[in-house]
């Protein structure tokens, strides 16, 4: 048993974190996360509050990135936390860390929501110019016109065209890779690689910008 904050053993036998190896700390965190989700699954209100405190900011930002308005993002956050409660008993710390699980549930829910609402943009071609993609958010909606993704869009502009288009369509619009592959008439493997490399490059550039 390990204490979260204290560095001194207490009456319950908590072990000071300074004495714990990295592996022990990781194991302890996994156990704590598993216990948290176990309590969430059981409907423990305090556990739901803890889950919200830890991940609400991240979940809201992801929702805000994919949905055009704050009210829509807030609605989605509510649905995502209900979904997290419904799926809490399936969380397996051996498969993924809790933040990964929360992100996966959130992204899948948002993509489903986008698809349910028939958020489909007019097909743009592989050769389309940046900023021409349109969606059903509104007649003139385009992520390129939205300030909230300005940082991402700046980074996107510097990517090779295939990577940029694939990221726009899959990462921002929720198209499946197969759909993107058909739209661009490019092999599925090529689309996967372009997306993977593009995302990695984006993250590297974003980190470098943060460091400056």
């Amino acid at each position, binding site marked *: 048993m390990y204490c979260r904050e204290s560095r001194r053993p207490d009456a319950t036998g908590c072990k000071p974190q300074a004495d714990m190896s990295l592996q022990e700390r990781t194991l302890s965190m996994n156990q704590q996360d598993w216990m948290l989700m176990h309590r969430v699954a059981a*409907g423990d209100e305090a556990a739901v509050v803890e889950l919200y405190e830890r991940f609400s900011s991240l979940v809201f930002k992801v929702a805000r990135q994919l949905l055009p308005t704050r009210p829509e993002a807030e609605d989605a956050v509510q649905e995502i936390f209900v979904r997290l*409660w419904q799926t809490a008993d399936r969380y397996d710390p051996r498969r*993924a860390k809790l933040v990964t699980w929360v*992100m996966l549930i959130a992204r899948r829910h948002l993509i489903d929501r986008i698809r349910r609402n028939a958020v489909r943009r007019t097909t743009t071609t592989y050769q389309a110019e940046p900023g021409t993609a349109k969606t059903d958010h509104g007649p003139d909606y385009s992520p390129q016109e939205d300030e909230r993704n300005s940082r991402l869009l700046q980074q996107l502009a510097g990517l090779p065209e295939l990577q940029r288009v694939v990221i726009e369509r899959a990462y921002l619009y929720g198209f499946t890779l197969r759909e993107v592959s058909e739209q661009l008439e490019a092999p599925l493997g090529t689309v996967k690689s372009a997306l993977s490399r593009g995302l990695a490059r984006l*993250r590297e550039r974003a980190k470098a910008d943060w460091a400056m």
Partner: protein
Amino acid sequence: MTSPEPMTRKELLELAALDVLGLLDEYEAAYYTRSFHHAPATVQDEIKRIQAEVASDESLLPGEEPDPSLRERVLAVVAKAIERETSKLAPLATIGRARHAPADGDSRVPLPASGQFWRAACFALAGITLVFAMFYVRAQHYGNRVSEIALINNTEAILEELIGPTYKDFLFDPDTVHIVLIAGSAAPSAKAVICINERTNEAFLITDGLRQAGTGAYTLSVVESAGDDSRKNLRRFASTGGVQGFALGTVAIASLATASWQIVNSTGQVILTSA
């Protein structure tokens, strides 16, 4: 249809970000998970680390924070969902009892129709079970009694068959004298008793353990007094080895106290004797 080979480490790492961002379709996601479980522990740890980094990386996300009021709304929605789910399960767990006491202090809450039905069914079932239990106990007692009577009757029938229908007259008559014969070394397990009614002089012989030997014939004889060589053979009989009874008819013996009784086999060897 065969399953594809698990992904290599390179493929797993390449698709790690796509997996966590929900960009793989259902089939690919399942394939990825299966491959993950086939991977060595070190690769799994590497993937988990990369995916956690991708998931928690906010550098590509908008900088907006949620409104503080969203917290209460989210918690309320989740609580409502939990309550709804719990209420679905409630009837199974609360047959016959109300979940919450009402505010006015009256703890008796009317049951729904289904609850009343199940309660009545439970009472009926308990009553039927009790009746069957009582019936079973009585039937078992009656069965035991019948067996006991049958056993007694059967014992009497066997004795009558072995010894004869009049054996009771000899065994239980106060005037009957029982003379027990003692086995000799030739047949140590043999037993015999002679019952003589002093009033009627009727006699009866019961033997046990006289095995069939030689011709199988045995002779009961009596010497009325010591020193008297006049041996009188009373009955010649064959034995099968079990309990057997033989009516000896009227036996006139002057003095039972001085008479000596013997059972000898066909070779003249004394098997049992009264002295």
